[in-house]
C-alpha cells in the first residue's frame, strides 16, 4: 500500500498536468507488487508502446521464440531463489549439498526425457552455447585430423555463425541445400562426406518452419562413416519423442525456455560410448567436468529439470491438443482465404509450428496490422530486419512469397478461442491488404504476374 501511495505521489510530481492515459511519462506507476520502472504506460483501457495503442495483452502465438514458464516449473524453482541459495559446488556445508542434489536430480530428469544417462548431460546457458561447444569445441579438439564440417543451409544462426568462425580458421564447411519441403537429401549428405569430415550438424526440428529432419537415417549414415553427429534439438525437446540411441547422436543441444522452462539455461548431451571430446569454450573452476566452467545456476537448472519431467508426462496430451489446434487454424484460414501456402513439409512437421505465406500481402504490413496477435515472420533473432528469411530462401521459396510469411506458434497454453480470434484477425487483415493490392486485382482478372514485363529503370 505504501508503494502505491509513493507511486501516485511520484506520478503527480513527475507529470503534473498530463492525464494518465497519455504516453507522456516514461515512468509507469508501480503496480501492486513490482515497483519496476517499465518503459511504457499502462492505462485502464490499454497500453501505449512504441506509439501504438494496444487494448489488451496480445494473444501469444510465438512459441518458437520462447514459451511461457509453466506454473509447476515456477513452483519448483522458487525455493531455490528464496532459502536454498547454496552454491552446488560448495562441498563443506548443507547449503551446497542440498543445491547439489537438486542439480543432480534435474540432470536425471533431463536425461530421462532423451533416453540418456545423467552423466552425459552438461548444463550450459542455453542452446546457443551448446551449439558453440559442439561445433567449435569438437573441431578444435580434433583439428589435427579433421578439417571438414557438414551442416545445412537452414540451421539456426548460431550453428551457421560458428561454422563461419571455423571457416576463418581454415576449416572447410559444406552447407547442404534442402529440398522444397525443407528436408535434406540423404544422398547428398552421403556424397558430401570426406575422409576428414569431423562433424555432421543437422537440427532436429527447424525453428522457422517446424520440419522434422530424418534423424534416424542421418544417424545411420554417420554411424556407417564413424562421424560424430550433432543435432540442435532445442525446438524438438519435449515436443517429439527423442532417443539419443535411436538417433545415434554424439552431441545434442537442448534449451530450457522452449519447453516451458526458464530462460538462460540449456543442456548439452555428450555421448560417453563412443566417447566424444570437446575443447571447452569457457575456462575456469572446472565445473561440469571442465566442459563448462562457471557456477551452475541451481534455480534455472531445477526449472529445466522440472520442465523436462512435465514434458515427458504431458507429451502425448499436448501433442494431441496442439495437432487439433493446428488443424483448426489451418482449415479456418483456408476456408476464408485463397492462395495460402504452408512453408515446409506438412507431413514431417511439428504441429505447433505453422509457417504460412499469404500471397500478395507484404508480411511486415500484416504483422503491423496484427497488433493483438503476438506472432513473427520468422526467427526472433532476425525479426528486426526486413530481409526475407534465409530459411525460406533455402527452400526455394520465391522472394515475393518469402516476404509474406508469418509463423504461428501453438503451445500448451493456447486455447481454441485464441486460435479462432487469430484466424478472424488474420483473415480480416489479409483481405484488407489484398483489397489494396493491385497485384491481387490483376491476378483475379486472370493476368499471370510472372509474365508481366516490368519496365526497366
Amino acid at each position, binding site marked *: 500500500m505504501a508503494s502505491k501511495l509513493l507511486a501516485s505521489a511520484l506520478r503527480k510530481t513527475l507529470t503534473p498536468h498530463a492525464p494518465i492515459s497519455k504516453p507522456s511519462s516514461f515512468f509507469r506507476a508501480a*503496480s501492486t*507488487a513490482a515497483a519496476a520502472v517499465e518503459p511504457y504506460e499502462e492505462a485502464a483501457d490499454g497500453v501505449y508502446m512504441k506509439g501504438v495503442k494496444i487494448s*489488451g*495483452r496480445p494473444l*501469444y502465438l510465438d512459441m518458437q521464440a520462447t514459451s*511461457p514458464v509453466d506454473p509447476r516449473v*515456477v513452483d519448483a524453482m522458487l525455493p531455490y531463489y528464496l532459502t536454498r541459495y547454496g552454491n552446488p559446488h560448495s562441498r563443506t556445508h548443507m547449503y551446497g549439498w542440498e543445491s547439489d542434489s537438486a542439480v543432480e536430480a534435474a540432470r536425471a530428469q533431463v536425461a530421462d526425457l532423451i533416453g540418456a544417462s545423467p552423466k552425459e548431460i552438461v548444463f550450459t546457458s542455453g542452446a546457443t552455447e551448446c551449439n558453440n561447444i559442439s561445433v567449435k569445441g569438437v573441431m578444435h579438439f580434433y583439428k589435427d585430423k579433421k578439417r571438414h564440417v557438414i551442416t545445412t543451409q537452414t540451421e539456426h544462426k548460431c550453428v551457421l555463425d560458428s561454422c563461419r568462425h571455423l571457416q576463418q580458421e581454415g576449416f572447410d564447411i559444406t552447407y547442404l541445400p534442402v529440398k522444397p519441403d525443407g528436408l535434406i537429401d540423404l544422398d547428398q549428405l552421403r556424397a558430401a562426406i570426406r575422409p576428414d569430415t569431423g562433424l555432421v550438424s543437422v537440427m532436429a526440428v527447424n525453428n522457422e518452419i517446424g520440419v522434422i529432419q530424418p534423424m534416424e537415417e542421418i544417424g545411420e549414415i554417420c554411424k556407417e562413416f564413424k562421424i560424430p553427429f550433432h543435432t540442435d534439438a532445442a525446438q524438438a525437446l519435449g515436443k517429439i519423442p527423442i532417443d539419443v540411441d535411436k538417433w545415434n547422436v554424439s552431441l545434442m543441444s537442448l534449451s530450457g525456455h522452449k519447453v516451458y522452462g526458464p530462460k538462460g539455461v540449456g543442456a548439452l548431451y555428450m555421448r560417453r560410448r563412443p566417447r566424444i571430446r570437446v575443447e571447452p569454450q569457457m575456462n575456469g573452476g572446472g565445473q561440469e567436468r571442465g566442459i563448462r566452467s562457471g557456477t551452475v545456476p541451481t534455480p534455472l537448472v531445477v526449472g529445466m529439470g522440472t520442465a523436462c519431467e512435465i514434458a515427458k508426462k504431458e507429451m502425448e496430451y499436448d501433442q494431441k491438443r496442439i495437432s487439433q489446434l493446428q488443424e483448426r487454424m489451418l482449415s479456418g484460414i483456408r476456408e476464408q482465404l485463397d492462395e495460402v501456402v504452408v512453408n515446409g513439409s506438412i507431413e514431417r512437421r511439428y504441429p505447433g509450428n505453422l509457417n504460412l505465406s499469404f500471397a500478395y500481402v507484404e508480411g511486415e504490413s500484416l504483422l503491423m496490422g496484427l497488433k*493483438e496477435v503476438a506472432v513473427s515472420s520468422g526467427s526472433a533473432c532476425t525479426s528486426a530486419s526486413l530481409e526475407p528469411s534465409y530459411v525460406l530462401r533455402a527452400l526455394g521459396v520465391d522472394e515475393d512469397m518469402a516476404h509474406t510469411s508469418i509463423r504461428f506458434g501453438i503451445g500448451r497454453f493456447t486455447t481454441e478461442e485464441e486460435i479462432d480470434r487469430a484466424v478472424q484477425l488474420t483473415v480480416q487483415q489479409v483481405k484488407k491488404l489484398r483489397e489494396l493490392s493491385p497485384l491481387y486485382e490483376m491476378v483475379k482478372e486472370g493476368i499471370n504476374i510472372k509474365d508481366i514485363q516490368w519496365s526497366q529503370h
Partner: protein
Amino acid sequence: MSVAAASAPSRAEVLHLYRSFLRVARKFPDYNIREYTKRRAVDAFHHNRNLSDPSAISSAFSDGKAQLEVATRQAVVYSLYAPKLKSVMEAQIPIHRSECTD
C-alpha cells in the same frame, strides 16, 4: 512416493478434489494459465474416470492432491504479480481498477 497405498479414496473425496481444482483454477489472473488449469484438471479426471484398480486410483488421487497444492500456491504467486492489462481475450470484461486516478 506411494508409500502407504492406503484405501482408495471415496467418491465424495474425488469429487471434492475435482471441485477444488475448478475453484483454484478460477483464481489465476492469467487467462492462459487459468484456462489451462481448468482444462487439464477436467481432462485428467475424465481420463481416469474408468480406473478400477484401487492402487491406481489412490496413486492418481495423491498425484492430483499434490498438483492441487502446486496450483493453490501458484494462484497466489500469479495474483501477486498480475499485470493491470488483461489479455485481449478478456477485453470485453470491464477491467476492475482498485486505484483511483483523480
